[in-house]
């Protein structure tokens, strides 16, 4: 049995909404797991069930070999960082960190030492006497993390902790969280709807949609090998291009072009997915793109244009190439890096 074990966990709210469907998942000790999915997909509910803040309708949660279903949140030895940090507004930073320890009946000297250690680690030692209202967003974030670290819990739970920060700080804190987790080595679950956050932080990633884990794997596995249309569309930025097509005799015919020798026996209506970064310019390419718009990011250019029937088809090219609006590009798919999904089920078929 692994460190954290979810077995057929289901959550049905009293009004009948099914938030999480029979989810099973194992997380190893020290692993950084990220739940990613659109809002309302059940990822936060799953996290809150691990924390004990939501009841489990069906299934079991085991943490470190102990069944947690009926265990009180305070007894689970988990720490959580909330989206709005939920710092205690009337206590100074020191007491925010110390409160959980005091409740455990730890003696004063030990508390002081633990708080000071955590504060040092997070570089908040200078603010220990301040109230949360006198701190900036990044500092509050650090205090929230400090409150989690100081208790030395079995597992860290992060519920979209970066979404209240501005873009620059978000990237910085993302890095700090990752570094910190590696340093402290605590098993962590991080919930986010931001796929970049998910890709960068995760040891393993669970892509969740409609209360079901669509795919579980390392970020690169999921990026290279999405098993469904949803995962393919959700992971990767800019989003994968999707085209309608038809498969017959290992030949895929799509909008104005054909791909032969496709690696599948599947036949019928399909969706073809191509990532913008897997396209290359070449003479007599498969795809003919009429350029509408170029977004210059510096390192890259995002080129948006039209195929025969498709709008906003995206192609990503290095930033040093100049591409004129209104020009026609001829594009090929690099190394057969395309994905074919069954149109009705959304499952990958090649």
């Amino acid at each position, binding site marked *: 049995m692994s460190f954290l074990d979810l077995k057929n966990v289901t959550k049905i709210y009293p009004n009948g909404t099914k938030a999480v469907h029979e989810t099973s998942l194992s997380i190893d000790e020290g692993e950084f797991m990220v739940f990613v999915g659109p809002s309302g997909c059940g990822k936060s509910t799953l996290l809150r069930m691990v*924390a*004990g*803040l939501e009841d489990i309708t069906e299934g079991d949660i085991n943490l470190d070999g102990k069944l947690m279903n009926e265990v*009180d*949140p*305070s007894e689970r030895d*988990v*720490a*959580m960082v*909330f*989206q*709005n940090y*939920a710092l*205690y*507004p*009337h206590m100074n930073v020191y007491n925010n960190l110390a*409160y*959980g320890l005091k*409740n*455990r009946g730890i003696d004063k000297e030990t508390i002081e030492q633990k708080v000071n250690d955590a504060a040092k680690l997070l570089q908040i030692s200078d603010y220990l006497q301040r109230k949360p209202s006198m701190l900036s967003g990044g500092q509050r974030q650090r205090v929230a993390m400090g*409150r989690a670290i100081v*208790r030395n819990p079995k597992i860290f739970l992060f519920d979209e902790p970066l979404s209240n920060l501005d873009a620059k700080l978000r990237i910085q804190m993302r890095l700090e969280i990752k570094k910190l987790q590696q340093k402290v080595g605590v098993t962590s679950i991080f919930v986010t709807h931001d796929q970049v956050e998910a890709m960068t932080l995760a040891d393993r990633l669970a892509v969740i949609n409609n209360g079901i884990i669509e795919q579980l794997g390392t970020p690169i596995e999921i990026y290279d090998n999405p098993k469904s249309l949803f995962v393919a569309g959700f992971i990767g930025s800019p989003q994968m291009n999707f085209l309608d097509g038809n498969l017959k005799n290992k030949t895929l015919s799509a909008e104005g072009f054909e791909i032969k020798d496709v690696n599948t026996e599947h036949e019928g209506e399909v969706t073809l997915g191509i990532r913008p970064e897997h396209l290359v310019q070449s003479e007599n390419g498969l795809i003919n793109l009429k350029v509408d718009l170029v977004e210059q990011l510096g390192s890259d250019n995002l080129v948006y244009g039209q195929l025969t029937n498709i709008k906003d088809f995206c192609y990503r090219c290095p930033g040093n190439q100049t591409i004129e609006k209104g020009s026609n590009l001829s594009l090929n798919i690099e190394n057969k890096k395309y994905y074919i999904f069954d149109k009705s089920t959304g499952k990958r078929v090649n």
Partner: protein
Amino acid sequence: MKIKPLQIIAHIILILGVLLMVVPIWISFASSSHDSVTILTEGMKFHIGDQLARNYNEVLNEKGGWSEEVTAAKMFINSFIMALGIATLKVVISAMSAYALVYYRFKLAVPIFWLIFITLLVPLEVRIFPSYKIVSDLGLTNSYTGLILPLVASATATFFFRQFYKTIPDELLESAKLDGANAWSFFIDFLVPLSKTMIAAMFIFMFVYGYSQYLWPLIMTTAEEYWTVVMGMKIIYTESYEGVALPRTAERFAYIILSMIPPVLVVVFLQKWFIKGLIQTEK
């Protein structure tokens, strides 16, 4: 600085308001410093006379009532105990019942809240006979308990606390839970400190309410040692009318001025909190 006409008008209105409030108090105070004969013959006074110390000394220490034993000082103590008891218990009970209503999501929470709220429609004056019956059956007439207890339940304060607790984000509770707080420590460590301005505001309201109670102590108390200041205002010195003695108007004014002091002090000391509690919440 340029003063706009609108500001002048606003100030005139405010000054008139202040005068309307202050002048009667000043007249009472000035009149309390003369002797009764002067006031009876010359009417109320605007300037301070020479009987100030004598009048106040007499009011505080003279023994009155039928028993000739109760003094104004004793009545002040009674009123203070009653107001303090009502205010403290009201705040404590309202805060705790609001806590139960907001955080324990039992099925009857909403009906119970409305039941509490409806009691606003039946103030003590309406239910005075049943209340008296209950208190007297419990043998609580002529006791501080009897004076305080029937006035303790408060829909207003419960409502205010409930509204405040509802604005506290759920994450705070969840976070506290993960930090090992139980129901009691969440109330003491979080809700009480977060609502301290609110508590101060409610305390002032309820203190003044308790202090100015008239009908209930009047019905409740037959023993003079439980008389309160507001009752005394009506009862004390009435004997003057019966006999040949002059009405003791100056002493009455002194008594009125004294009776105003405790609530004023409470407001003065707690007003900083009071205003904060009414206009903002510390979050």
